[in-house]
């Protein structure tokens, strides 16, 4: 499904601040893979997702999704194939627009936006049904401005919007990190459900080792722009936090400075 080859991204090239965020990364995802990505601050996790989303173009390498080369395409053209939920709950929705308008905008991802009136009766009913899945009562607040919702509600809505057009790849970028523990658990549960029901291929970045072990069928760990661990199948099912730390230390030759990664 996703085929990344020799992907490299260096920021501030040729200056004293030069920093290699992605160092010749290769990664291959099968259809239906749910991969959790873990690593310390600055390991390159979010950079990897940004590279796939097309926030900027990489220095070299190739990103193929379903056989189609993404490198060179601008961000809005890649959106057709991708669904994305950001760490910041403010990033994924338009606060000045209503809940139904946000959904309607997501429903047209990858389509040409012309002079058709956006929301009709039938569509409104569809959205109401869709929002019921979240069990947050949003189905009764279709015309509320999204800016009035809480962070958790906005993340749940963003998740729904990202999965709406069945993306070829769903990218969750620490999407529960800014939420309180209870809401985070709820949003994670929703993510699991949506990924399973639509059998989506997904990449989930997290700081939390327990989460990374609990969710998905495969785990990769990143460090200084490289993938240092790649564990899947039964081996991943049997994984514990202690073992993960031990394997990381053995691999990188340094102790895992996972300040936040150890918590939770």
């Amino acid at each position, binding site marked *: 499904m996703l085929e990344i080859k020799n992907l490299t991204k260096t920021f501030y090239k040729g200056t004293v601040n030069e920093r290699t965020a992605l160092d010749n990364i290769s990664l291959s995802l099968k259809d239906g893979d749910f991969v959790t990505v873990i690593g310390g601050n600055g390991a390159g996790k979010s950079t990897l997702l940004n590279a796939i989303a097309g926030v900027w173009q990489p220095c070299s390498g190739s990103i193929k999704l379903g056989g189609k080369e993404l490198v060179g395409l601008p961000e809005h053209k890649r959106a057709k194939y991708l669904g994305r939920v950001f760490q910041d709950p403010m990033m994924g929705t338009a606060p000045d627009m209503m809940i139904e308008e946000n959904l309607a905008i*997501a429903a047209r991802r990858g389509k040409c936006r012309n002079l058709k009136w956006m929301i009709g009766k039938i569509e409104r009913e569809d959205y109401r049904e869709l929002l019921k899945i979240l069990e947050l009562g949003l189905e009764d607040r279709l015309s509320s401005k999204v800016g009035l919702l809480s962070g958790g509600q906005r993340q749940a809505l963003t998740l729904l919007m990202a999965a709406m057009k069945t993306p070829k790849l769903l990218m969750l970028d620490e999407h529960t990190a800014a939420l309180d523990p209870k809401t985070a658990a709820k949003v994670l549960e929703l993510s699991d459900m949506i990924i399973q029901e639509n059998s989506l291929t997904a990449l989930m970045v997290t700081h939390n080792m327990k989460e990374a072990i609990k969710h998905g069928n495969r785990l990769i760990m990143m460090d200084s722009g490289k993938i240092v661990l790649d564990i899947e199948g039964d081996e991943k099912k049997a994984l514990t936090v202690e073992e993960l730390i031990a394997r990381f230390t053995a691999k990188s030759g340094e102790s895992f400075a996972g300040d936040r990664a150890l918590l939770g």
Partner: protein
Amino acid sequence: MTAFLESLLRALPGSAAQGLIWGIMAIGVYVTYRMLDYADLTVDGSIATGGAVCVMLILGGVNPWFALVAAFAAGAIAGLVTGLLHAVFGIPPILSGILSQLALYSVNMRILGKSNQAVSVDKYSLILSSRENMHAVLICAVAIAVLIGILYWFFGTEMGSAIRATGSNPNMSRSQGINTNRMKILGLSISNGLVGLSGGLLAQYSGAADVKMGQGAIVIGLAAVIIGQVIFGKLFRNTAIKFLSVVFGAILYYIVISIVVRLGLSPTDLKMFSAILVALFLALPSIKESIKSAKMMRQGKNA
């Protein structure tokens, strides 16, 4: 006192007519400033461009209605240029507007041939004129009703909503497949088209196009947007009615202006007055906030 009120009342139709014409311009400002979150300074130039194109076409024998359409188009092109400067060449919003505005001065001079070009209502069948204010008010009111109807429809369509989403959250818009650059260009074109149209109406109303007629226009537009929002913002939530509140803001602005002029303010001081007025309304939220926190502090001390 009664004499003052009488003269004010007599001036009311004139204020209303001017308010309505500038109201169209203010709707244009609303589209960029509020919907697109883009402080566009092109308008000072594009309003004069609209006026100039309109007057020159009428002098050349073109139907005044068609001349208005051309004024819209000319304004839209000005907006397009600003949009391209920003979206394609990455020039910051304020600067791209200033550059267009500057260039438009020369363009407007070229169109007019001299700094002021009169078009007499006696010689040409103009749509409206300051000689018949009630008639002008009627024409403008109908025009605004039609315009708001069209804009309400447009900003409810897929394309119009994409423009609104771009202004509200460009990150989200791109990740939902919206070409935010294209939407900014489109929004700026529509906005400046409306400004050009208002310039065309203004030139017909006052019987002349002047290369300086747009000086400070952005401040009047902002005044209308902000006054409309502060006074009517709580009442109106619907998008169509929000456009209307901007027009009310413009009318209110012109009524206030006509009051202060009658109270003895010199016309040359008006720009100063407008600037203070807009600054005041813009400062209102933070003034409210500091009064509130001062109150809380006092309460805290007494507790």
